[in-house]
């Protein structure tokens, strides 16, 4: 038995440590430890609930905006506020474009170096790379000259001993399977992804004021400048020098055109670069559908409301699947969520329900530094262990796509189509490769919907419906003395819940359970593993000095320790 320690796990959203026991070349047991705690839940207590989203969104700057959205929704639910349709559309656009960008660019930034040996890219032939690109994509965006320049540039960096991010994750690892031409293609797409991602930051900035941490949310809607709906010319009572023309940014004609073209660019990137690359990778590493299988219990809170009713239809549906049985989807009850802290660095022992007795009292109880090895029987992570009606659950894109498939509807159709092209069963979603493919399916689903939301929004604004916020309950004097609220939604990492209680117009309790809290969960009070821990068990390890297979399983969850532990 060999204990492998990976700390830091890089290319994830925060400080993460993973330890695995390897026996006979296979992972026999695993422990995941989030190694950072910040105390944001506590920092929210005592604040004005209308301010909560500003601080709550600082939980994560990578999946940015998600926790702002979750927070305003929870406060709106507590105060009984229904937001206007325009605000729903803008929120969908912000969260949807964020998810698309995060998935597609994240594939190159976080996943690709595990599957393509970027350090071998200088050995690739630009002509062969282009031929490959043409064979997998309808409209490759590269030229031979560009590929040659990238090849030369990377060769110079590697020769100088300064490859930066373009080194191999594990030099000469036999687990790399792609040709040098494919490696070069992925390296070129890595750089294209960076440039495209930067353009999408403009989309977020138009609608959010900045990115990360958009600043246009409001309890009750959004705070964006709409086009001036009044008379075009100054009337008698107005100051003649009002410079109205400076006001609109996102919704000016130029702003609308930019937003549309950015959505078109996103669709191009997903259709012609990201999705083809993922399908090519999935084909080359087809056997990775048998690793990282995991719990088989899947939970999706669902997101992207498509109408303004109290229980709206969700583009990504809500539901629970147990034991990989896709023939049945259960409804979701937020009161079933509880967090165990028996193996986490907190003062309590028992399970805590965020809606009722949730608490966050940090108390480090691990070994003193330097930490050489974790004691899996003791408290070993800053992450709590969420359970849904006492069961550990996997959340994230694979869970969302599995639930969408099981629930039928338009999302399920996209899942079928992509998996069908690969010749894979739906159950292949529960695997290392399945999670990566699920992310691409979800990006495709959302990028095709962005246009619709944008068009609907512009139609509304154009027809004079300028309402972006319902502020009838903005005044605190109208609030009840005691109230409580919660919201269920989705971040890139998975199902997100915010719970809060308001007393005398101030927050008195605030609890967050993020998707990564579910996936990075340590053991619970009964010793059952969390989702990632479970998925790691059984992973083959060819070379303990270079546990690339283990890292692939970890990153297939796209874990975000910053989200997991607030």
């Amino acid at each position, binding site marked *: 038995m060999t204990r492998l320690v990976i*700390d*830091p796990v*890089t*290319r994830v959203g*925060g*400080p993460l440590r993973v330890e695995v026991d390897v026996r006979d070349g296979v992972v026999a047991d695993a422990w995941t430890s989030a*190694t*950072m*705690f*910040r105390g*944001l839940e*506590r*920092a929210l207590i005592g604040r*004005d609930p209308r301010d909560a989203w500003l601080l709550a969104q*600082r939980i994560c*700057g*990578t999946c*940015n905006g998600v926790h702002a959205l979750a927070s305003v929704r929870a406060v709106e639910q507590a105060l009984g506020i229904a937001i206007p349709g325009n605000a729903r559309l803008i929120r969908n656009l912000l969260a949807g474009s964020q998810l698309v960008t995060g998935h597609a660019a994240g594939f190159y*930034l976080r996943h690709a170096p595990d599957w393509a040996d*970027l350090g071998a890219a200088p050995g690739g032939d630009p002509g062969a790379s282009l031929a490959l690109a043409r064979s997998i994509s309808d409209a490759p965006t590269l030229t031979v000259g560009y590929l040659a*320049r990238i090849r030369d540039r990377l060769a110079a*960096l590697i020769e100088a001993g*300064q490859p*930066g*991010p373009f080194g191999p994750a594990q030099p000469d690892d036999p687990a790399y399977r792609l040709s040098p031409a494919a490696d070069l293609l992925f390296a070129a797409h890595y750089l294209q992804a*960076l*440039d495209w*991602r*930067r353009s999408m*930051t*403009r989309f977020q*900035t138009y609608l*959010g*004021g*900045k*990115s*990360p941490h958009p*600043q*246009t949310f409001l309890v009750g809607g959004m*705070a*964006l*400048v709409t086009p001036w*709906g*009044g008379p075009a010319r100054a009337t008698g009572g107005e100051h003649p*020098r*009002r*410079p*109205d023309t400076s006001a609109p940014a996102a919704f000016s004609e130029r702003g609308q055109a930019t937003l549309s073209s950015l959505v078109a660019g996103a669709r191009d990137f997903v259709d012609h670069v990201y999705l083809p690359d993922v399908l090519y990778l999935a084909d080359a590493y087809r056997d990775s559908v048998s690793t990282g299988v995991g719990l088989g219990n899947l939970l999706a809170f669902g997101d992207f409301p498509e109408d303004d009713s109290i229980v709206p239809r969700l583009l990504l549906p809500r539901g629970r699947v147990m034991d990989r049985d896709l023939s049945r989807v259960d409804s979701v009850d937020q009161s079933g969520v509880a967090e165990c802290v028996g193996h986490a660095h907190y003062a309590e022992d028992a399970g805590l329900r965020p809606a009722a007795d949730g608490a966050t009292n940090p108390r*480090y109880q691990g070994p003193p*530094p*330097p*930490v050489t090895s974790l004691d899996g029987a003791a408290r070993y992570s800053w992450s709590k262990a969420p359970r849904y009606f006492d069961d550990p659950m996997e959340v994230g894109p694979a869970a969302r796509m599995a639930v969408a498939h099981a629930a039928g509807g338009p999302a399920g159709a996209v899942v079928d189509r992509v998996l069908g092209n690969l010749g894979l069963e739906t159950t292949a979603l529960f695997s290392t490769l399945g999670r990566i493919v699920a992310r691409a399916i979800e990006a495709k689903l959302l990028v095709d919907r962005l246009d619709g939301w944008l068009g609907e929004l512009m139609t509304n604004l154009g027809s004079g419906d*300028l309402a*972006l*916020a319902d*502020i009838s309950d*903005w005044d605190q004097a109208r609030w009840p003395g005691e109230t409580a609220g919660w919201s269920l939604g989705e971040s890139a990492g998975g199902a997100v819940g915010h719970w809060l209680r308001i007393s005398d117009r101030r927050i008195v309790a605030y609890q967050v359970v993020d998707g990564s809290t579910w996936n990075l969960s340590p053991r619970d009070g009964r010793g059952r593993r969390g989702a990632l821990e479970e998925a790691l068990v059984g992973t083959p390890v060819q070379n303990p000095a270079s546990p690339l297979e283990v*890292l692939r399983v970890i990153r297939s969850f796209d874990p*975000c320790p*910053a989200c997991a532990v607030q």
Partner: protein
Amino acid sequence: MIRPEDGLHAALVRRGMTRRAFLKFSAAMTAALALPATYAPRVAAAVQSAPRLPLIWLRGQACGGETEAFLAAAEPSVTELLLDLLSVDYHESLMASSGAAATAELTAVTDRYPDGYIAVIEGSVPTAEGGMACTVGGRPFRDVVGEVSAGAVATIAVGACAFDGGTQAAGGGQTGAAGAANIIGGDRLVTLPGCPVNVENLAATIVHFLTFRELPARDGRGRPLFAYGGLIHNQCERRAHFEFGEFVLAWGDEAAQKGWCLYKMGCKGPETFANCPTVQYASRTSWAVKAGHGCIGCAMPGFWDAIGPAYQRLPAPLPFAPNVSADQIGLALVGGVAAVTATHGAVTYGRELRNRFVGRRRGANVALADGGPAVAVTEMPAAAEEPAPVEMAPVETAPVEPAPVEPEGVGPTEAAADGQSIPGSVRAAEIVEPEPAPALPMNVPEPSADGDDGRRPGDPSPGEETRP
């Protein structure tokens, strides 16, 4: 190992960038640094020939937002930064290797770069309970920060959390979170507060270092004056509405649709020193106030607690300037003569602040233009003469009474009081009255031949200034 031909200009030319476009880029950078336009060639020359700068990026108690901002860098772009300007040897969000191999890169860095490297710190450093609220490789983040910054020629603390603990210190915090300055301090530290940092300011700091081999002039807390020397309020595109008493009174009202001033909705622009209105975000696409929501003061120390409720009109006492009562600024707003007077009080107060800081920068710039020793002058000679202010607040100089309108002739007096000698008269253009045209002071002024680099009325002009 690092070759000059790997510089940015070579890379840009390889990508087909013209000389003209490159000079434009240099001019933009010069403007971002608030340097006179005459510096553009110098910036261009330095950036052209600069070797890749080794950079070690450490992430502590952070949300990852600074990394996200870095990855959206536009001028220069993140790909240019990664391929041509910087050698990002350690960055946990980007690097290929993991675990012991990653840690080995960190420990080898001092040997690899005996001449030093740039260290960037993202996030706060927990100090309570042995620092175990954030560990990397099994060691407290605090220890890693200490070691890495010891071998760095400069350390850049990016974002509010690395500045003073930020979000983790909100409400006191549970982890003893501290900023980088509390851990390392010293004169090799640049702080770039903001939540998150505006990546343009990070890029400009790097370009400044490449150009002058020195860090930009900073205040007592390490904030570069080019970025944090001016009030948001004074640069705001909605400022004219403030002057005219045109305010948003409810979200979504007619005034909101017209883009009027957000002061009464709790905007903290009148108290926040940052260049958001001029630099904006994502290639000048937008910023919070332009989009429609007030400033939350995220570039200021302890802003989560100091600003009070985000939607409450600036209270008394003012959060960041405790000696000035709110109404002296706030009262501006009702209309009539009293309002004009009070407004000018606010303007004067802002102007005086700028004089204090920008004046020093001018001194540094003039010395540079003379070919003086860059090292000495960019370290803010004035700071040695008097203790640098801990807060950029008008503790001594702010008028507590609404000052009479005195748009002209104040420069020399104030500057002299501040230890600066400014011969000559203040130019006629430097009056406080808003321009009659509806054009607003909204964009980074293009550096023009007369050296106007966006100074506020009342600032000493570099051309008219001698070295103190």
